[in-house]
């Protein structure tokens, strides 16, 4: 029994924290938020230089080949820094889709380029219905002489506008899990139209992707027709863990900001942090965050080591951290008083990220119902 981070993971955490404190201050966050793409290739290259863009990519493809827990630790620090950019979409979702999907030619071609930072990937699976179950995939993949023709509209595709390729979920059969395929589609393929969807959380860049008669070769298929949904499900579980990790880091930082403010701000002749109501709000934040950390670590561990519990654990972590991050930032804004409500103060960056994280890949209500089913209620 050794429930906790290894020494190497603690080092990874500390080095990520130091790096991001230096390289991703809120000034950069705001600059990228204002920018058209929300993406700075130079910054992305720095992440590649640290080895992080390939953290979870097997070393056979030039990556570091580390675990979901390692990636979660890194993601926590990125959440702490409200780091913008396509890391999650590219080195998380797209990388995992390729790794789990299994088409070796595609892995050989694209994974090393994700590692080096020269390529960005994105995952296109949600549609207008915003359904997370397999019936949410309505986009069609019709067989052609040389491959497939894709038609449909994908929504909330993170960072499609800067991606070199998209992993697109489309179906070759009218209903059901079988018949869902994943295709690697270079963004510049004719028929692909990407429109950024400006978002209240400006650290995230979701896009609408319209596919009109997009022809791809047979070799573009990432996973067999029978494995497409299985692959996608695994990626969605990973997304839940990684977003929960981002939320954990953000919640911790929001708590720290609130405590720091409460110690400094004086009213009625004393620091507001000496008033019990304020102290108790902070204590409640601690009492929610710390057990959530344990839950998150378990979910990351289960993803790799207890696969029969992985989906359950991912839903638990996503549901809990969605609630905790949102509640923590709500309290943190209130503890800051009027200034917490301004654009100028940084607090809203975390506040908005909390709400985006909450909604993405299934909110707490969705995941609680999913848990109820998986737990056999």
């Amino acid at each position, binding site marked *: *029994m*050794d*429930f*906790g*981070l*290894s020494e190497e993971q603690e080092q990874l955490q500390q080095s990520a924290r130091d790096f991001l404190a230096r390289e991703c201050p809120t000034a950069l966050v705001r600059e990228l938020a204002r920018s058209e793409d929300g993406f700075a290739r130079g910054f992305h290259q720095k992440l590649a230089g640290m080895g992080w863009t390939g953290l979870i990519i097997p070393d056979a493809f030039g990556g570091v080949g580390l675990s979901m*827990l390692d990636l979660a630790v890194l993601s926590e620090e990125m959440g702490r820094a409200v780091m913008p950019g396509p890391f999650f979409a590219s080195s998380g979702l797209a990388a995992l889709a390729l790794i789990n999907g299994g088409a070796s030619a595609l892995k050989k071609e694209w994974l090393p380029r994700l590692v080096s930072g020269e390529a960005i990937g994105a995952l296109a699976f949600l549609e207008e219905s915003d359904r997370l179950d397999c019936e949410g995939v309505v986009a069609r993949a019709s067989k052609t002489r040389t491959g497939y023709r894709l038609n449909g509209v994908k929504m909330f595709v993170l960072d499609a506008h800067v991606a070199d390729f998209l992993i697109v979920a489309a179906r070759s059969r009218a209903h059901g899990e079988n018949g869902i395929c994943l295709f690697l589609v270079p963004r510049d393929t004719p028929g692909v139209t990407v429109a950024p969807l400006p978002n209240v959380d400006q650290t995230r860049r979701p896009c609408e992707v319209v596919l009109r008669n997009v022809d791809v070769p047979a070799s573009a298929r990432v996973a067999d027709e029978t494995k497409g949904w299985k692959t996608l499900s695994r990626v969605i579980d990973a997304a839940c863990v990684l977003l929960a990790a981002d939320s954990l880091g953000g919640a911790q930082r929001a708590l720290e900001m609130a*405590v720091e403010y*409460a*110690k400094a701000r004086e009213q009625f002749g*004393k*620091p507001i*942090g*000496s*008033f*019990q109501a*304020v*102290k*108790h709000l*902070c*204590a*409640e934040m*601690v*009492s929610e965050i*710390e*057990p*959530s*950390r*344990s*839950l998150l*670590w*378990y979910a990351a*561990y289960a993803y790799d*080591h*207890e696969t029969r519990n992985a989906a359950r654990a991912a839903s*638990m972590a996503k*549901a*809990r951290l969605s609630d905790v991050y949102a509640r923590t930032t709500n309290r943190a804004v209130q503890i800051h008083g009027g200034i917490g409500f301004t654009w100028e103060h940084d607090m809203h960056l975390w506040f908005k990220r909390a709400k985006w994280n909450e909604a993405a890949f299934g909110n707490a*209500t969705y995941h*609680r*119902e999913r*848990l*109820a089913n998986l*737990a056999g*209620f």
Partner: protein
Amino acid sequence: MDLSFTAEQEAFRRQVRTWIKANLPVRERDAPPLEQGDPKRIQAMKDWQRKLYGAGYVAMGWPKEYGGQAADVVQQTIVNEELVLARAPGLIGMMGIQMVGPTLMKFGSEEQKRRHLPHILNAEEIWCQGYSEPGSGSDLASLKTRAELVGDEFIVNGQKVWTSNAQHAHWMFCLVRTDPAAPKHKGISYLLIDMRSPGVTVRPLIQMTGDPGFNEVFFEDVRVPRQNLVGELHQGWQVANATLAHERNMLGSTTVTQHMFNGLLRLAQSRERGGRPAADDPVIRQRLADLLIRVEAMKYHAFRQLTDTIKKRPPGIGASVNKLVSTELNHDIAAMALEVMGSYGLLARNARHVVDRGSWPNEFMFTLGLVIGGGTSQIQKNIISERGLGMPRGA
């Protein structure tokens, strides 16, 4: 990160499970604790602890010289988990094992250890805690029960309240004021008081559950030998703080919480609301799922704290977080059970149509008592914010 137990630990678990199955009487399963139960049960409870101790499953972490096995914390954790899984009753000697024993081992004289530790382990002597007073609850350090040192005896006068099991106890560990002139934290001493001493009067108090779960204890010129002082004179607050930390960990038992949740889930699956199983109702499912998530979070949090204990990391305010979260979670689980039962929820134990032997409304009330006792939730939040976050005291 490794959640597995070693082959030896798994073998040990199987051994424990087999032993419990062979030795726990069926009628003892789900038996209530002494505070809620029948005084006639005392002998059965003592017998059970004695048997368990004889098998080597009690106070395993205590040093061998004091009756333990110097076993690592994982082994005792495995035993505790297996006991909960088997629905075994709590130990009658838990106060002694978890609170007094460790305190004596840390601060007590050799004579005190020799005199008391064996009887704690074999359940021959039951202990109660003399801390709270009518005027001193959350502000425990303001306590007034006076112990005047006269020659080689203390003369004790005063009153304690909320003293669980005082009516059955042989001994009390008691905080008394030995120096009224000193600042309040510096004038307290920790005394062991024989409950059969002349001048000790125990008066049961009925809890809202209807059970005489705790008591008032009056001291009128009670003579306590000087050698019953634990630690130095006027140093009782330091001694007590060590014990309070143990109490908070004891109250945050995650396995019991999991067990309660399992009972709630079974209830929701077997009872109907609006003509269908409660567990099929989408709103109830949401609330059950949320409780399950909180329960699981505490389970993994306990593994993390176990690991920290094994690695000898300082516990910090972890015990306060545990106490705050677990006690409120247990109460919320019981509250959900009442919701699932609807009109049946408030039926008393002896009513026709009562569900689960009327245990749920009892749990609902008793768990609120546990939110308050051992340091209220509000006090825990003060501790977490002041000692954990460094926020300023007082205002």
